[in-house]
């Protein structure tokens, strides 16, 4: 019985070993074999993700990041926040209870690159937007242990005193458009101004931001400083939009008992 089951396998191994024995005398034979064997898996798993339509849910109301939020995202990457924080709530009950509706593919559709993370030294941040006030966020980033004494998060006080570099923002938005984020020409051209406008409520620039990015855009003195635009403004603007780009998760996943 066992013999019968194993027979086709042993034939295969025999054939495999012989083929290999011949191939190992030719470095090019080995090279081609290795490339071929290693290419299959990636091709089968990755290529369909680009072509199968229901891989990413459709949300016509999905927002893009404003220039200030994108600048904040770039700071998040620069500081390596992703090394301690995930942005991917899994489809597990305790995660949904702790962090909110589980993450959908569409939510990171415009995230180049994604920041799902791999380690939760700190909590998940996928839905941290508007969970805390701007003041809390600023205070927490400047001195985490003043709010959470047990925290092991690093302090980032310097962000409050570092002016945000805005000149490169049009170029950044243009690059993002190249890889697939639907920014308009106008949004790209005015990126630097819009970054400023978003942190100065009730100014002409702020109205322009509202016009270009929608009524729901957060326009506030994020870092509390009125004299200049800092990196803290950008980072807090980014944190406050996390989970807020699409309404789909909340609409699709109606909590039990409601």
């Amino acid at each position, binding site marked *: 019985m066992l013999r019968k089951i194993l027979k086709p396998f042993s034939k295969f191994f025999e054939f*495999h070993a012989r083929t290999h024995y011949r191939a190992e005398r030719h470095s090019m034979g080995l090279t081609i074999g290795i490339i071929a064997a290693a290419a299959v898996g990636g091709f089968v798993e990755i290529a369909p993700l680009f072509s199968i339509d229901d891989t990413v849910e459709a949300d016509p109301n999905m927002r893009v990041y404003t220039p200030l939020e994108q600048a904040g995202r770039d700071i998040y990457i620069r500081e390596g926040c992703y090394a301690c924080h995930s942005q991917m709530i899994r489809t597990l009950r305790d995660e949904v209870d702790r962090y909110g509706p589980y993450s959908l593919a569409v939510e990171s559709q415009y995230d180049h690159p994604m920041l799902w993370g791999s380690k939760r030294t700190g909590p998940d941040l996928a839905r941290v937007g508007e969970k805390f006030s701007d003041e809390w966020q600023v205070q927490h980033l400047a001195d985490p242990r003043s709010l959470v004494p047990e925290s092991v998060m*690093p302090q980032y006080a310097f962000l409050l005193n570092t002016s945000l570099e805005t000149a490169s923002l049009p170029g950044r938005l243009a690059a993002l458009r190249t890889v697939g984020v639907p920014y308009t020409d106008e949004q790209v051209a005015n990126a630097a101004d819009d970054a400023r406008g978003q942190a100065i409520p009730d100014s002409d620039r702020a109205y322009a931001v509202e016009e270009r990015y929608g009524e729901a855009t957060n326009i506030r003195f994020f870092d509390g400083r009125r004299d200049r635009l800092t990196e803290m403004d950008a980072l807090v603007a980014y944190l406050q939009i996390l989970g807020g780009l699409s309404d789909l998760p909340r609409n699709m996943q109606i909590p039990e008992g409601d």
Partner: protein
Amino acid sequence: MMERLTVAERQQAMLITAVLALAGLILAIAGRNDPMGVHGWMTLFFAGGLFFVVGNALYAAEPTEDRTTSYYDDPTKVGILLSLFWAVVAMGMGVWVAAQLAWPDLRFDAAWSSFGRIRPVHTSGVIFGFGGNALIATSYHVMQRTSRARLAGHVSPWFVLLGFNLFCIIAASGYLMGITQSKEYAEPEWYADIWLVIVWVSYFVLYMRTLARRNEPHIYVANWYYMAFILVVAMLHIVNNLAVPASFSAAKSYSAFSGVQDAMTQWWYGHNAVAFFLTSGFLGMLYYFLPKRAERPIYSYRLSILSFWGIVFFYIWAGSHHLHYTAVPQWVQTLGMTFSVMLLVPSWASAGNALMTLNGAWGKVRDDATLRFMMVAAVFYGLSTFEGSFMAVRAVNSLSHYTDWTVGHVHAGAMGWVALITFGSIYALVPILWRRESMYSWKLVEWHFWLALIGTVIYVFAMWNSGIIQGLMWRTYTESGTLAYSFTDSLVAMHPYYVARTIGGAFFLTGAIIGAFNVIMTIRRVRQDTHELDYPTKSEAGEPAVPVAE
């Protein structure tokens, strides 16, 4: 060292370094308003320095003897020393990062010293600096010995080795300045990535040209693994780093992929960096140095064929087990899990092959710490591949993912397998390379062995405990159906394990420092020995190409 190059080769080297210096200057000027400019200057100094070193000896005496009658070991020697240098730096960084999680204020009041910026210095430093240099150096040694032929070329081995180190320097210094793509283990930005492609292609060409010179009909197992390492890493690196720079005068770029597709590409890369950088290459080391040191042939040639192709084919599918329960489609997760479990077969075939090779040589394992390094490495390889397949199962992953258990798993592999096989190979290799009678002190090798083993065990147990406790606390409910613990509660519970982990890491680091010291003392103090059979030849007179005739 320059006396082994002809004047024409020296001129070639000067030309290459001059072109590189020019590239550095362009980068420095283009990026003058961005941290990228600093990298331009660093490249300029690096290449300029080499230009003068070579130029200074341009017309010194040329080699007189026939170079094909000996192996070319200078680049291997430098590679081993660089590997040890990176080991001490990167493991030192590791202890510091670990300490920051126990005592978060153990840092400078400067942006560069925060956890998020120095962690990649540790990971890249260990993987690429320590591991990469060791792989390049040992591959030079192994490809020559198993082919019984001298390296093909005298400039390209240096180009590959030093070019790779330039990449490592740019990577590590970039993180401190905040230059990163955020893709784990692929953090360096576009210009560094392009440079690595150039270096890597040269590496492959060098390998193929050396094999083409071989005086043996067959290509030995170790070379298959080194070849898989070079080829697949090239494929992974190029695809995962596809990106559009925001400007050619700054470092920042945006990944060509987003969201789900980016996650899948990243973990296809990430997991196979483990497979083809940290496994395949080091199996190459294992398949050469372990039988050589034990003076026994590999237990089964058949088994090595099976495990080789199994590893090359199965591993590629496994990356999606990093994405269980996420927004990646379920069928991809299931494929990832299935192949991860199947992967256990070829992995254990390799580990078993290594251990069976030692069967009958246990006396040597007991007495010789160098061989013991390799034996324990094979055991850890077996254990961590088992653990990996286990953690890839969805139900287990729901607990282990995002926790320290993953960190523990990675370190069982990185410390227990990768670092131990590397140190074992270095101890076997150094006396041969430098033509010494033996290592400076076998007692220090023993010390290193025990420090490394104890450090690894402390580290891994600490992370198992913290990871499982963390995972359980996050999912525990009270009787009334609410979550029992806040995130902060779990954080407090981690503290003792974070302290223990730091101590384990410090043990390991101490071992590495002792190892580096021992190697330097071997070079400086130990008596010469001819190792007279170690030369390229067609005849059977020399050292056998494959450990002990089959």
